């Protein structure tokens, strides 16, 4: 791997991404066996430090580490010294005293993982920082796309719909999709569209009229906290659902729908679409496991050896 840490999609070259996705693919057979565990990372220590609520990312990383036989420690905000006012720097220094190989970290502030990397010899993997980056989500999304459409994603059209302003998934995905040669269109209400986001080389739309031309529709969760009084990002969830919500009438047969979860049925996605076989949401969760196994593995061993041989 080009860099020691995985902090942002900018840390990865195309070669790195292809290697991680190939490695993830090579891990798939393990997950079909009766005994879904290999000794690859035996004796390695992986700390997960989640300073923000998470279900799927933290459980996915935890299971990925266990499938590779690594020892894991989980530190969450509630019930830990962070609640007692310990600084990020001190938490990282303390965790580093256990000599972990990897710290998997989520934090509500952008750049927190990069700051943490300054204080530890361990590799830091960003599991989401602020509204900035969520590179492992992007990699699992790319893996899902590859499993669905094949290795060549060049020229495909993907529309990301929803609250772009507050989405780290969108920021990582834009970088990753563009790296694969995909055309990215951002769709959403102007109040949730960052000013000057076009500078990233994306198209911006405020309605769904062009959605049918997309190969893939990628939906983002509308967070209820955006609805707080005075925030005025949206007048109501009802109006959002009417204007930007995806239901059967807005999806072309065969058009694929993705969502990083957790979904709001009846807001950004109708129940019918959520349960439709063309929807890739559960494939994404599955991809999360093999992709994160590949990320942990490649972070520790780098470019050397072949994962499948060891598996």
């Amino acid at each position: 791997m080009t860099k020691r840490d995985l902090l942002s999609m900018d840390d990865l070259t195309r070669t790195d991404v292809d290697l991680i996705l190939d490695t993830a693919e090579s891990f798939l057979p393990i997950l079909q066996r009766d005994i879904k565990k290999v000794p690859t990372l035996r004796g390695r220590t992986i700390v997960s430090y989640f300073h923000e609520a998470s279900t799927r990312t933290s459980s996915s990383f935890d299971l990925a580490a266990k499938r590779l036989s690594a020892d894991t420690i989980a530190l969450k905000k509630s019930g830990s010294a962070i609640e007692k006012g310990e600084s990020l720097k001190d938490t990282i220094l303390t965790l580093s005293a256990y000599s972990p190989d990897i710290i998997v970290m989520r934090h509500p502030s952008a750049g927190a993982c990069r700051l943490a990397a300054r204080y530890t010899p361990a590799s830091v993997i960003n599991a989401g920082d602020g509204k900035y980056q969520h590179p492992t989500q992007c990699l699992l999304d790319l893996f899902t796309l590859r499993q669905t459409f094949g290795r060549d994603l060049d020229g495909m059209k993907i529309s990301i719909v929803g609250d772009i302003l507050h989405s780290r998934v969108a920021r990582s995905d834009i970088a990753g999709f563009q790296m694969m040669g995909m055309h990215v269109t951002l769709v959403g209400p102007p109040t949730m569209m960052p000013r000057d986001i076009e500078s990233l080389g994306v198209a911006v739309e405020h309605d769904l009229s062009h959605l049918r031309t997309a190969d893939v529709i990628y939906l983002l969760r509308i967070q209820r906290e955006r609805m707080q009084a005075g925030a005025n990002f949206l007048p109501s969830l009802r109006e959002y659902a009417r204007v930007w919500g995806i239901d059967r009438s807005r999806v072309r047969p065969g058009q694929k729908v993705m969502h990083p979860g957790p979904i709001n049925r009846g807001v950004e996605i109708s129940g019918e679409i959520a349960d439709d076989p063309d929807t890739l949401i559960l494939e994404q969760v599955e991809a999360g496991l093999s992709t994160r196994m590949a990320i942990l593995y490649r972070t520790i061993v780098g470019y050397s050896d072949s994962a499948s041989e060891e598996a």
Partner: protein
Amino acid sequence: MAGTATQRLWCKRAAKADLLVKGARVVDPTTGRDEVKDVLVTRGRIAAVGDDLEPGGSAAVRDADGCLLMPGFVDLHAHFRVPGGEDAEDLTSLTAAAAAGGYVAAFGMANTDPVVDNAALLEGLAQRAQAEATVPVGFHAAVTRGLQGEQLTEMVELATAGAVAFSDDGIPLRDADLLRKALQYASVTGRHIAVHAEDRSLTRKGVMHEGAVSARLGLAGMPSIAESIEVERALEVAAYEDARLHVCHVSTAAALEHLARFKERGVPVTAEVCPHHLTLTDEAVVTLDANVKMNPPLRPEADRAALVAALAEGLIDCVATDHAPHCADDKEVPFEEAPFGVIGLGTAFAILYAELVGDGAIDLLTLVDRMSSAPARIAGIPQPSIREGAEAGFCLFDPGDTWTVGRHTLHSRSQNSAWLGKELRGRVILTVAAGHVVWDAGA
């Protein structure tokens, strides 16, 4: 009251300098001089400016071949952190940092803990300065008690105690009527009102300039209109009252348009700009280093270029550092959680000389005017000058000396510099303030 010449600066007593600086390029906007001369200082005063001067008696001789000798700089806008924030800065460290940056006077803002909003507190600070400050320092008083934005301070009494001007800097005066009354009442004291122009309903939880970089980083943005709307409103009120207004830390081209329009109309307004806004852009924030987080935030290149041009032509009157020390524990946190502010006294001239004079954006004589004569005029203190009979207040700058910005070169108790760790070319090597040698890099 108006124009009463009360004392506005205080420092420790020290031995008066006896010094002969030989062969420096003397650059002095107060005399228009830009030529190689010897400067003789006797008992803290400039005794002679000429050629082949001889040291009288005990004068130390300093060979200054290739160096610039300039009137010392005056900072209208610093945060001393005294009282209440002495872990980040105290008057000893502040004036050490100022001296190493070539400053001969600095004025603190009133947003301390407690707030400088009464004469007794200001008199106490003046006493502390006489015990601790090597470089003369002075103080702003608050516009409103406790910076609460509600009740005016006793401005006449504060002016009598030596307040240089009035400002709630750090917090915008949100109420136009309050600004109006403050301008009306301050006119009695002969002091101006300095405003921090920011519409907080627009900046909200913003941490950097709103634009392409904030879009990329997912950081909440502070739009440029948050500044320009407030600047325009303050100018309207000042024009209506024909009152002395000073606009702090202008950072946007849009605000400059308003400033130009009202200056043309003859409104008695002055404005300052910070070294970081003149030399850095919001692109610097991609590092997510808390040492480039300040308010107003770094802006895009078009704004930066407009600020430089405005400073050169005099639309912006002066440079002010907005020196804002924060201790390491407060800045070693993720960008969004860090407090706003960077220090600037130690690097201001070196960075502006290297970046602006170096590429011809501003000529040296003009830059010295903007850093020394102009802010002195605004503060109502004598302009530092290299002329016979004047009190010695100058600095010597070696354009070839390279140095690294860090703890040992900044002298501040805090190291939150936007240039921390950078190597700069050109360094202040000697500063004489109030007739005392306050900084000698060779000592």
